[in-house]
């Protein structure tokens, strides 16, 4: 294990990406004591962040799947920057707010607040429906994301000036949770079909 740690430190010092770190360690499936070492294949916190911002091209999505949150400022942040200023054509001010919200990619929860859960609720000080944050089953995370990326969410929150670049036809996928069968009791997610 210490060899892996040293390799990690060395690679970090060289400023190389977490992907190389993963690749360097992935051959290790069993440690000396017979304890299996599991190598990260996938990572998810906020849905639709990596999928929307990171291209499949150039392995951007894969890189983020295999990174740690602390790698995101060097990796995912570039994907967000490129998409927001290029694809969405948004201002630098709005782009910087978006980066501050989604990088690093973790789901933020304030356990001291009562419910309800509300996607991005901590980062937006409750503007999405509650200060507990987290994510409720019925939260329309796609529309929340689209509103931030293509709509007027950030200017409306007073977090950046309106840049006049909203694309109204891209701010909702027009699909809600109507087809789902959430339950009021554990485990809350609907019975299988």
């Amino acid at each position, binding site marked *: 294990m210490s060899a892996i740690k040293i390799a990690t430190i060395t690679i970090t010092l060289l400023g190389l990406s977490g992907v190389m770190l*993963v690749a360097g360690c992935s051959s*290790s499936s069993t440690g000396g004591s017979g*304890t*299996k*070492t*599991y*190598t*990260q*294949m*996938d990572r*998810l*916190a906020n*849905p*639709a962040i*990596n*999928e929307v911002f990171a*291209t*499949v*091209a*150039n392995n951007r999505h*894969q890189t983020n*799947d295999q*990174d*740690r*949150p*602390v790698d995101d400022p060097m990796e995912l942040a570039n994907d967000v920057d490129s998409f927001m200023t290029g*694809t969405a054509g948004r201002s630098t001010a709005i782009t910087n707010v978006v980066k501050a919200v989604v990088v*690093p990619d*973790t*789901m*933020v*929860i304030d*356990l001291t607040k*009562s419910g*309800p*859960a509300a996607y991005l609720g901590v980062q937006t000080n409750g503007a999405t429906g509650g200060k*507990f*944050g*987290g*994510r409720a*089953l019925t939260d*329309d*995370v*796609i529309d929340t994301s689209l509103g931030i990326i293509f709509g007027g969410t950030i200017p409306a929150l007073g977090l950046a000036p309106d840049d006049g670049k909203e*694309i109204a*036809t*891209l701010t909702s*996928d*027009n699909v809600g949770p*109507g*087809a*789902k069968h959430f339950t*009021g009791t*554990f*485990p809350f*997610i*609907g*019975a*299988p*079909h």
Partner: protein
Amino acid sequence: MKSTRKAKILLALAAAVAVPVAFVARVHGSDHADTPALAARPGADITDVFAFPDPANAANVILAMDVHPLITPGQISSVVLDPDVLYQFKIDNSGDHVEDLVIQVHAEGSSPATQRVFFSTPVRPNETGTSNTLVGSTGTSGAFNSTFSPTTGMTAFVGPREDPFFFDLSQFFTIFPDRATPINGKAVSDPNVPKSTTWRAPGVATDFLAGYNVISIVVSVPKASLKGSGTGKINLWATTGV
């Protein structure tokens, strides 16, 4: 969603990307399998993460992750948690975005009737980062597709459930064909240039995932066990490892 309509949509999407229907499983949900390794290992493909207060116990919070996209009704009786994958909820309670605690979930056995699932309590991991080993305490195991208590204060479930994610995935691929590359192999040279500037209208837009299932990993855990000595504001993410 009528299954016939769903099947038509699936077939239409499969035809559009010129691959067998089965390969649609490679791209799905809020986060899709974008690597050959993940495509070959749907049990390691995380599709969703949720966190909300436990409505039955104000002291607890519900953490959930879904894996294994696009399980059809016919496959329900045979799919289990991948026993070779380590599933983890990772929690940072100190604000440095490095995990202070993990809840590790793993399974033994490969048939729905005999599989046992294990949940650790929220514990300090042996290692932070992307290479991990099992922590010592795994608590009481439970049967696959059952609700049980791994330890006092925790309630857990692992089993097939309806995919809770709702999204017009096919229109997303129309807008950004690059994101469909894993299922059709068609590289897009301008991956971030939208090929359409609109979603579909209400009533036309379709919840592509309606009718499909996932394997849900759900746990009710005391908030106090996640807080540590921190302020109560935590960062959560889920990982899979093999």
